[in-house]
């Protein structure tokens, strides 16, 4: 068997197509924006936002589609990554704030802080902030997962406690004395890496960076899920106890996938913040996390590319509907949830698969209805 043949056997075609499309976007959108001006600046940021959301959706698909862990709190990891990036951006404002304090962000001056809280130290350095973007969500996920998977909290129970986690963080970040700007969050950013964050070139660069990061994350996820590790994950998803009886340390596999997923979500959040220009506690709201799960369900759970397509298309629809018919948006979103679960249990990917457009390989097998013989 040739090397190419081996590659094709292991890697689905989408592993090439999706990154190629993303890289192409990373080149074309900035060109259309900077050279010809056909794409206005706010659209560049809007597309960048969709791709950041796609990153979140991808991270959810990694754990839900392949390990069977439905997280209703992934928005928390996304928001934590966003806060780490937001803190870096706040430190970059320096003395240009309203109060002109060289070190303290405006809200701290307002709240009579004397010095930076310890957890703000070091975040003026981009490499450190970038590390924190992955480390903070990663550590939280590791701690949470270590407890939860070891105690064999599964299914609905895990979903509920992940929701409780993001709800607790929501309440915590709303508090002013947490040192994260309370309900206003972090905003009024000026620079990133010394470039003006409002400049057209910076916007284009941020979009390109998001597309490239998403492409890399996608390749990572495909690599993970098609590897031996991925096979075990799928086995856990389909029959957790059986896998455990086969001698696999189920909780280790789940914990690894869960932590990687949280770090990806954190990167998504970090890419989201500079393009949207604000991060506030509402990103922790459980509704956001559930909505992200729906993107994945719509695109097709367990396909990875379906998550990206789902996130981008639902958000594009949202942008259009909230602008054109704001009353209709929640009806549309709600209807979408119901229709997808009733008629498209495998999402858009499943639909395409059924009508023979493409062949998906990693869609989860529909388990027969579980009715233990009693």
């Amino acid at each position, binding site marked *: 068997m040739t090397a190419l043949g081996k590659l094709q056997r292991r890697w689905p075609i989408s592993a090439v197509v999706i990154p190629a499309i993303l890289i192409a976007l990373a080149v074309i959108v900035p060109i259309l924006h900077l050279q010809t001006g056909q794409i206005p600046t706010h659209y560049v940021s809007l597309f960048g936002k969709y791709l950041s959301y796609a990153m979140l959706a991808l991270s959810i698909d990694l754990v839900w589609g392949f390990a069977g862990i439905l997280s209703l709190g992934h928005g928390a990891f996304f928001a934590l990554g966003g806060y780490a990036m937001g803190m870096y951006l706040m430190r970059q404002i320096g003395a240009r704030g309203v109060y002109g304090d060289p070190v303290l962000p405006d809200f701290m001056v307002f709240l009579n802080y004397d010095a930076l809280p310890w957890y703000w130290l070091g975040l003026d350095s981009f490499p450190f902030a970038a590390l924190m973007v992955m480390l903070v969500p990663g550590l939280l996920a590791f701690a949470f997962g270590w407890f939860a998977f070891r105690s064999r*909290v599964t299914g*609905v129970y895990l979903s509920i*406690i992940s929701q409780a986690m993001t709800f607790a963080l929501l309440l915590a970040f709303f*508090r002013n004395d947490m040192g994260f700007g309370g309900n206003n969050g972090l905003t009024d950013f000026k620079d990133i890496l010394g470039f003006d964050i409002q400049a057209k070139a910076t916007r284009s660069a941020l979009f390109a960076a998001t597309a490239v990061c998403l492409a890399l994350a996608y390749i990572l996820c495909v690599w993970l899920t098609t590897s031996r590790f991925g096979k075990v994950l799928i086995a856990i998803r389909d029959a957790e106890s059986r896998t455990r009886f086969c001698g696999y340390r189920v909780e280790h596999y789940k914990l690894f996938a869960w932590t990687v997923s949280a770090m990806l979500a954190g990167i998504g959040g970090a890419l989201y913040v500079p393009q949207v220009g604000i991060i506030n506690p509402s990103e922790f709201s459980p509704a956001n996390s*559930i909505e992200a799960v729906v993107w994945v369900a719509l695109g097709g759970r367990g396909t990875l590319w379906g998550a990206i397509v789902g996130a981008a298309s639902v958000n594009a629809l949202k942008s259009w509907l909230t602008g054109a018919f704001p009353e209709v948006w929640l009806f549309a979103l709600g209807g*979408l949830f*119901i229709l997808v679960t009733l008629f498209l249990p495998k999402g858009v990917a499943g639909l395409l698969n059924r009508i023979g457009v493409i062949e998906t390989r990693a869609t989860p097998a529909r388990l027969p*209805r579980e009715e233990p013989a009693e």
Partner: protein
Amino acid sequence: MTSIARLVAILVALLGWVHSAGADELGDLIQSFAEADGYDEMEVLIERVAATGDNRAAPVLDALGERDLVIRKSDNQIVIAVKDGRDFRLLEPLSLEVLIEDAGSRDFESLRVNNRIRRAIRLARGTLTLRNPDPNVRLRAASAIFTSRDADAIEPLEIALAEEPDPRVRSAMQEAHAAALLNTDAEEVLKVEAIETLAQRGDRDAMSVLLGLNRAEASPVITEAADKAIGAIQRNLQFWRIGQNLWYGLSLGSVLLLAAIGLAITFGVMGVINMAHGEMVMLGAYTTFVVQEVIRQNAPWLFDASLMIAIPLAFLVAALIGILIERCVIRYLYGRPLETLLATWGISLILQQLVRTLFGPSNREVGNPSWMSGAFEVGQLAITYSRLWTFVFAITVFLGLILILRATRFGLEMRAVTQNRRMAASMGIATTRVDALTFGLGSGVAGLAGVAISQLDNVSPNLGQGYIIDSFTVVVFGGVGNLWGTITGAMTLGVVNKLLEPYAGAVLGKILVLIGIILFIQKRPRGLFALRGRALEA
């Protein structure tokens, strides 16, 4: 009651006073001033007037002190003379009706008073309200003295105390006496006694009296007694504070129970993760709003009964919509909990937007019927009627559900279906019908919760969102599939939340509770009361 009545009778007999003074009696007493021979008799009369506790005696006593109480010469009647220019107006002493407009100073003769009589009058005036026939007036008078700590009130208090039949008023008077006594330079022993009386009262007011004690002038014995009393009061206050927080906790628990108990049916018993549960609560609240609107416009006199009318309607509305949802969506998703979660979340969004479109996005005002507003006190616990009735309602709903599950045919079928669907079907139970009705029951109970919550919370389209996470944590904490677990979970979470609140603040307390639940689930992944079974994957 009879013992109090007997006590009154005995007291009256002992003192030889006719306590329950009628109008004529007071009138006769006042008229007898005309025959009073000498100051001694007058003093006795004043005392008897004061003993009636009749408010109408106040102007008479004042007039006597000012020498305005006079004897009309023409008929020897006692009247009040008021100077009006050069003439006098004569008033009937009790009704204060004008008898004669233009009497001359020779038409009457003033009753003479000396300092002793003036003092007796002052005393009588002080005791007058304290001896009012209405115990509530006496109580108010005593607590007014308690706040003013007026040293002049000590003697009237002592007189009033000697004849006070009502134990409640008696202790209020004793406390007022003690508070006033501490304001004087009375003997040390008396003061220590007074401090002890205040310590017995044991509330914030007693504490402020003790803290306001002039320590620079007080002897060490007194300061020591005061310190001891303050310590005792603080312990007492702490005790009541914990009691109050416990009650708040139970009250919060009853709201949680109401919100969660419908979910305990749909999620706990049927296994349907119903994210639209909160919206069923919201529908119940909006039903209450609509009922009240209709009543306001058509039959305002029915307003106090509005909740009674809303309760069955809210149940019906929520139950019918629940059955509709079950028939149209959920029945296709049994056995796929995660998909159910997404679909019901979609339903919740649609219901929210529907209500927003119909009723507008802002809060709607739902009024409290008169029997829901106000509060009463038990010891130092302030209990509002709205909380009390919510508590009672929650418990009633809970017991009703238990009864339905345990004692009705439908409950039997429901339990059969959840325990073994195929076997139940084989025995001739229409499982799909039972599914729909069970879901309807769970939703209807959520609607009932909405009626109660409309009394406590803002009624807005987002109402349900605030309760959904709490409801799920309660059900999961208590143990899925067990109603007793739900009530234990709700009450525990409510009480823990409220006990944490004074130390950690409301938000941090809630965060701590959430973290506690996350950790608790690690320890007992199936909740407080897990159903025991041998199935590998429940």
